[in-house]
């Protein structure tokens, strides 16, 4: 069934992708859909969804993480993998190299073969090239290999070290990845092949065609480094395990995590460090990569605790934990480290209890979310609603939590602040005997309360020195109703000061509950 994908480009619906039967009909990419339909009315077309291709490519880049941590996106339809130092890991995967590729190192060849096979299984048609520099690999994959990837075998190949010249020299100038204007200018003077410029003196070229051309040549030759910008930051430490048969049960995954954490803990111990953030990457057979991250409140390298944190995280995922057809690669990374000195146990066990508490904070945080396990941080302000701030217990420095609760209290000092704070304060209808006096009765949540005892007022003025002008002053009263319930009420605004004679009168709010 001939099928094409179209997108609106240059004022027409143009074909951006097509399958083999469509190609066999003579339809070409970038052709307007109307022209192709005129020739082949049976052509099926789909509109390209915005962002879908990019998302697919990004997912594919994440999947390629299994070969190297440095994966960069290359335009709309390419990926750049920096396999320096990674290739030898795949060397055991020995398979007979086809003719013409035997000069490529075994590891690189095996890696490329493995990648193409797995991508082919997922239904992608791929061209791949391995070379000394990113520019050479790009030129080789995009211009030297067979262009028609839809027919049959994926085309791939590698340039053995130092062999780039003979292969790349005859390629068209576009293999240098130049801008159209530069290509046109080069074409006008008859420079059409890479070989025409690759060995020329750089000075005149730069003067006539711009610095960009010279930079491209230098990158192709390997005279200048070409930085690639990886999609994900490379982890500090990583351990992974591959499976011939995919695993899918959660218990199996947990067991694998323990093994990986043991390997990581040896590395961490050697560095004298512990991990503060760990990431688990589960590579599903069908190409989906699930990533789970946990943070810890202190440097950690105990494998059982690492596994415990991930167990909580996986349990919190619940039904979202979708193993599909199973995972064929599980990787555990350390994203953040911190100095970790072995501590000596003291007789009073204070250290052990602090550690147990931190372990609990981590466990709760892994399951519920780090921000949901909080401590009260005092803020230097007199406004009750911002006096305390809830900060994640995993990150807060306990030295900052100074609340001065040990100061002795004189007998019968009034209890100034409530036990429970209602945020935001709820408006109440209150009746006072005199306008600026304490409330006599008030209505809160449709219930009427008769005030029997009262203390106040305590006047709190929001910071008047700040711009814009803040809310008016508040007069706080501590009141008790007939049944002994105690509330914290305030009147916002002062009569005759904040409100004009015709303006709205001051309003009452309820902000807290006392014991």
């Amino acid at each position, binding site marked *: 069934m001939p099928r094409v994908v179209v997108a609106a480009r240059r004022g027409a619906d143009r074909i951006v992708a097509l399958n083999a039967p469509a190609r066999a009909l003579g339809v070409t990419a970038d052709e307007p859909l109307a022209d192709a339909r005129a020739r082949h009315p049976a052509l099926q077309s789909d509109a390209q969804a915005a962002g879908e291709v990019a998302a697919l490519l990004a997912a594919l880049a994440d999947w390629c993480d299994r070969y190297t941590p440095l994966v960069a996106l290359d335009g709309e339809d390419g990926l750049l993998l920096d396999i320096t130092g990674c290739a030898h890991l795949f060397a055991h995967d020995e398979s007979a190299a086809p003719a013409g590729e035997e000069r490529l190192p075994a590891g690189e060849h095996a890696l490329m073969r493995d990648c193409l096979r797995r991508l082919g299984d997922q239904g992608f048609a791929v061209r791949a090239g391995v070379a000394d520099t990113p520019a050479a690999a790009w030129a080789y994959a995009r211009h030297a290999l067979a262009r028609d990837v839809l027919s049959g075998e994926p085309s791939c190949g590698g340039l053995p070290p130092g062999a780039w010249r003979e292969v790349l020299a005859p390629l068209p100038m576009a293999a240098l990845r130049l801008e159209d204007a530069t290509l046109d200018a080069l074409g006008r003077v008859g420079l059409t092949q890479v070989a025409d410029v690759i060995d020329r003196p750089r000075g005149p070229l730069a003067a006539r065609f711009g610095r960009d051309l010279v930079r491209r040549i230098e990158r192709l030759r390997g005279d200048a480094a070409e930085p690639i910008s990886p999609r994900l930051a490379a982890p500090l430490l990583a351990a992974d395990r591959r499976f011939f048969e995919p695993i899918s049960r959660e218990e199996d995954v947990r067991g694998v995590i323990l093994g990986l954490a043991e390997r990581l803990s040896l590395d961490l111990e050697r560095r004298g460090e512990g991990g503060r953030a760990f990431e688990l990457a589960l590579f599903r057979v069908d190409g989906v990569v699930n990533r789970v991250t946990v943070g810890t409140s202190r440097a950690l390298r105990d494998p059982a605790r690492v596994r415990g944190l991930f167990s909580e995280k996986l349990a919190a995922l619940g039904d979202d934990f979708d193993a599909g057809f199973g995972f064929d690669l599980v990787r555990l990374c350390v994203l953040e480290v911190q100095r970790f000195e072995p501590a000596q146990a003291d007789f009073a066990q204070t250290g052990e209890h602090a550690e147990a508490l931190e372990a609990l904070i981590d466990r709760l945080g892994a399951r519920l979310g780090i921000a949901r396990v909080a401590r009260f941080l005092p803020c230097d302000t007199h406004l009750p609603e911002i006096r305390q701030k809830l900060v994640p217990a995993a990150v807060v420095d306990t030295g900052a939590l100074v*609340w001065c609760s040990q100061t002795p209290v004189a007998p*019968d000092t009034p209890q100034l602040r409530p036990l429970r704070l209602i945020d935001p304060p709820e408006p109440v209808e209150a009746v006072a005997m005199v306008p600026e006096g304490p409330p006599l009765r008030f209505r809160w949540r449709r219930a009427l309360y008769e005030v029997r005892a009262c203390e106040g007022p305590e006047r709190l003025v929001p910071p008047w020195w700040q711009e814009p002008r803040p809310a008016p002053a508040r007069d706080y009263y501590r009141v008790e109703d007939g049944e002994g319930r105690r509330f914290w009420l305030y009147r916002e605004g002062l009569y005759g000061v904040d409100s004009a004679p015709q303006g709205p009168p001051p309003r009452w709010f309820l902000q807290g509950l006392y014991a």
Partner: protein
Amino acid sequence: MVAVPRPDPDRTLLAELRSRVAALEGGLSSEGRLMPDPASAANGQGPARLLTGVAGFDGLFASSGMPCGTLHEATSAESRSGGALTGFVAALLACLAARRAGAVLWVMEPEAGREAGCPNAEGLARFGLDPARVLLVRTRRVEETLWAMEEGVQASGICAVVAELRGAPRALDLTASRRLLLRTEAGGATAFLLRHGGESAPSAAVTRFRIAARPSGGRDGLRLAPLGRPGWQVALQRNRDGRPGTVELEWDHAMRSFAAPADREPVVPRTGDGPAGASGTGRVMAFSRR
């Protein structure tokens, strides 16, 4: 009954030494200075007891003193009485935290807490509970609350766990609370279930306190009396460790302890026919009761 393992004499000795070292260093030990159970002190078994010093309250329990290291339940009739309920539990927590090291785990659902508000650190500090020792865990569902509570009672760095619930949630049935009780007794912490506006529901908790506020002052004509000390009418509706009963309690901020309420006397002297003082102007202080 849960079988309590007979403690190892060496470990008991070690615990004793630890608390003495902690006392010398001026800190709190993990085992704490809780009163040992007199009845079972001979064989070293049974839970530690919390003595409040109010005979009417301590006497409700089998061997005088509220048992620690187990599950208690405190409810209020209406959620608007949440202040009194929180105050009672905060007072118990302050007593516990003054005798034992470790953090206090406070678990609540913020959505449910919107009704009664969020615990206020300065208010807790006034009760003698250092807010720096409180860990506030905000959950999304009742199941998460129960799970966090279970984790808390089993951890060794925790001296008490409080979980706030609204009403009688379906997830907290007899099985769940029984499970919670077993976990609590296996661990070392004391657990409190705070139920706002909770109807009577089956529960395996050792006690059920029903807390209501106790009016302190009274209005004398149009003149408003000052607030006294916080007080509660505590109805011990169920007590597996003694007998049910009702007791009135007050909290003494200065001593950081419970107190039996003084006899009702007019706090503010009657002014007779004279004009009422200018209430509401200037600073109104609480009068001394004695």
